[in-house]
């Protein structure tokens, strides 16, 4: 089990800086996701950790020793890590057992021990009955399990996963993400997980590092990312939200017809311009004026658009005063016609301030 430190890690391709002074520390046994849209530099970061890509600046330390620096690269094969690739990279010329046992063979373990450990790990990933098969005879999910087994069986210092579930269909993806977390709970290997799928990251990770344009925007536990996004990008990327620009003055946040008391909202104590994130779940639509608790603003509004999503309604409402358009999530049974006049209630506890 290892502690991994990324310190000012930077990678450029020509004029393009794809990874920009990334700092990140993984504690022993921690599971951290790198989350971001494609092109944000998360895979490059992962490949730098693996040793496939040399950094242009900064360094990576494992257990206090430098393994990557611009002029000093420990090659991947000497890092004691293992990795699960987007394409799985299951070797088609070897059986499942040979695939899984390959890393152990490279470590020159005795044949008896290799067989034992391969048997054990195949048991863990529920693939014991398919050990003699060739990869071409396996389904996508089964190949994924082989890749997992192959990576874990060597008991790596660090486990790296590069979008491992992106080639699976939706149901299997859900099943595998719990499988990955289960294996982590069992083996406690320090893990870096790259994905662009936030629900995947949330389901698996201890912490998530959200990346954007080569930089780490915020590193936090999943629920903190959702409820307390600290940048405009994170707020917009994690879940859906209403970003509202306004002004704090006299104990209230005001923006184009909307007014929120600042009491109870962290970070809104100073005057001046501010940007807040208002989750659709923190807004409620009522046919009549609701009995709102103290400090929960209530206002008249009109339904502008609606989309039925099955699990919920997605409304866009226009407060009667000002030009704001706000997204609101509502229960499937809360049906309102477009154009109807309604009341809107806001729960300020779910309001978070985003760095403007």
């Amino acid at each position: 089990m290892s502690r991994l430190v990324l310190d000012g890690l930077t990678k450029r391709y020509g004029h393009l800086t794809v990874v920009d002074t990334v700092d990140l520390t993984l504690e022993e046994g921690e599971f951290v996701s790198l989350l971001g849209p494609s092109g944000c530099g998360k895979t490059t970061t992962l490949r730098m950790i693996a040793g496939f890509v040399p950094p242009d600046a900064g360094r990576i330390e494992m257990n206090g020793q430098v393994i990557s620096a611009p002029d000093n690269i420990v090659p991947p094969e000497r890092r004691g890590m293992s990795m699960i690739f987007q394409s799985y990279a299951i070797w088609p010329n070897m059986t499942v057992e040979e695939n899984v046992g390959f890393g152990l063979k490279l470590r020159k373990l005795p044949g008896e021990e290799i067989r034992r450990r391969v048997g054990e790990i195949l048991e863990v990933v529920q693939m014991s009955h398919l050990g003699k098969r060739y990869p071409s005879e396996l389904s996508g999910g089964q190949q994924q399990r082989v890749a997992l087994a192959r990576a874990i069986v060597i008991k790596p210092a660090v486990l790296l996963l590069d979008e491992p579930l992106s080639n699976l269909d939706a149901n299997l993806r859900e099943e595998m993400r719990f499988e990955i977390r289960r294996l982590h709970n069992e083996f406690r290997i320090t893990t870096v997980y790259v994905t662009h799928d936030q629900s995947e990251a949330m389901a698996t990770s201890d912490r998530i590092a959200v990346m954007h344009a080569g930089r780490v925007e915020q590193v936090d536990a999943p629920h903190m990312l959702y409820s307390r996004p600290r940048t405009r990008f994170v707020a917009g990327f994690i879940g859906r939200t209403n970003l509202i620009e306004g002004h704090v003055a006299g104990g209230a946040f005001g923006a184009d017809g909307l007014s929120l008391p600042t009491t109870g909202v962290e970070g809104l104590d100073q005057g001046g311009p501010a940007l807040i994130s208002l989750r659709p779940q923190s807004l409620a639509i009522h046919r009549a004026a609701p009995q709102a608790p103290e400090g929960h603003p209530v206002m008249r509004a009109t339904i502008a658009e609606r989309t039925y999503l099955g699990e919920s309604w997605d409304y866009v409402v226009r407060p009667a005063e000002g030009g704001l358009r706000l997204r609101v999530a509502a229960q499937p049974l809360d049906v309102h016609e477009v154009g109807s006049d309604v009341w809107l209630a806001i729960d300020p506890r779910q309001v978070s301030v985003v760095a403007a």
Partner: protein
Amino acid sequence: MSDGVLPRVTPRSSFRARLRNFEPITLLWLLLAAVLLVLVAFPLIKLLISSFETREGVFTLGNYATAYGRARYIDALFNSLKLGALSASIAVLLAVPMAWAVSRTDMPGKGFTWAMVMAAFVMPPYLGAVGWILLAGPNSGFLNITWRAITGASDPLFNVYSFAGLATVIALHSFPLVFIFVKSALDLVSSEMEDAANILGAGTFATMRKVTLPLVWPAILGGFIIVFLETIALFGTPAIIGIPARINVVTTQLWQFFEYPVRMEVAAAYAMPLLLITIAMIGVQKLMLSRKGFVSQTGKGGERRQIKLGAWRWALFGWCGLVGTLSVLLPLLVLLQASFAKAWGRGLSLDNLTIRNYRLLLFEHEMALTSVWNTIWFSAAAATIALVLALLVAYIAVRRLSRFADALGFLAMAPFVIPGIVMAIGFYAAYASPPLALYGTALLIILAFAARFLPIAYANANAAMRAVHPEMEEAVRILGGGRLTAIRHVTAPLVKKALLGGWLIVFIVASRELSAAVFLVGPRTRTMSVLLYDLSEAGNFEVLAAFGGILLVVTMVFVAIGMKLAGRDFMLRRH
């Protein structure tokens, strides 16, 4: 809990650490660059320099003055261009209907057509030329005799000893190149394209003319250019048919410059247009193919159905059958007859049958078996060298292991634009004389073959490499295996089959190579193709035909091995 078996991580930057972390790949690409320079760049540079030097090494323009100083030499140049254009046109006419029929329609006998195309491709062109002399000699050719007997005409149906005859014989052996180009392009045209035209009222043939063929015209043009270039660089057929027909072309003229006194410098100067034309044509082709909106770029998706032709399908089959008969069956038949004849002029009769010609070659001819052996091992060695080189370059290029990867790839592809005969002269200029003095050695021929066919090997190796996802290797490395371990256990087994196909293609084209070989062989290093060429002037067509038969058997054995190991269509895939 990490396994302690792995070496500990290295401490920060020290010389030893750097040395330990050094990738042998750097050394490899330096080595490759050196080898490619020796094989490809140096002979060409030497050729260019020689063309501006006297034998003593003094700068002169005299070689160019000599090379272009006589009307006869200039005529030969124009003859080559005319011949190339005519052969390429005929090849397009032959091949396009076949490609359309095989790719798009319900024509019967597609397997037969494939076999014919393959056979025409494998058959050495000079052998076909000999067959056609027997078939279409104006007075004695079987075709003309039959024609006269049927029609009572006094003029021959077809005179092989003519410009048209020469062009046709060349086209009959180069049309497979057009076929491969056009068919693979047609395979990508979605039937919806044709449906759209049909729905607007166009019939099957109007659709083909107005929609389908225009969509693949870059492929047709590409095929045309390749045949054109093959033709102007061809030596054997023009020497065998062109001299009696009194047609002098660039390649036979180049050969004359090698007569005593050997005027290699003049030959170098005279070879330059061939080189320039080839480079220009390949450039034009690239430009054409890179234009957007054609099938080669956008042909994905859409379903493909066979067009129902009704009775017309038999007409198309007739065409394919005719081309197959003319290019393969008839020449083979007549060669076979001659090879078993005491006197081929007496035609088919029992008392004219003999195996003497084969016996002579196999048991009495001192050089025949040696040349078979030479051919096999030169071709095998050349194919191996070309493929190993191609593989290493492709590896570096595909995995982008060096900043100079593209330059290496370019060098490996460069011989594609060098006509074989020009390359041979370059090799002669660079390596025949001391200090290396490779003239007459097997090594010179092997290296020349390897360089000449490097592009074929490279195209194969590159495609094979691309098919192996880099993560396959990275998975080995992250688990603790070095790059060589990854190559040995994963990459090599995965590309094995594709490379075998590539090896065999190089082997087969090398085994029939004449244009380059004829300038480089020594007395002990004659190949089958050169010996066949020598035999063609020995006044004994029976023995010549028998030797052609042996050559074909040898080739077929290797083609059969290739089909068995690398798939039925391994020679006709387009990379």
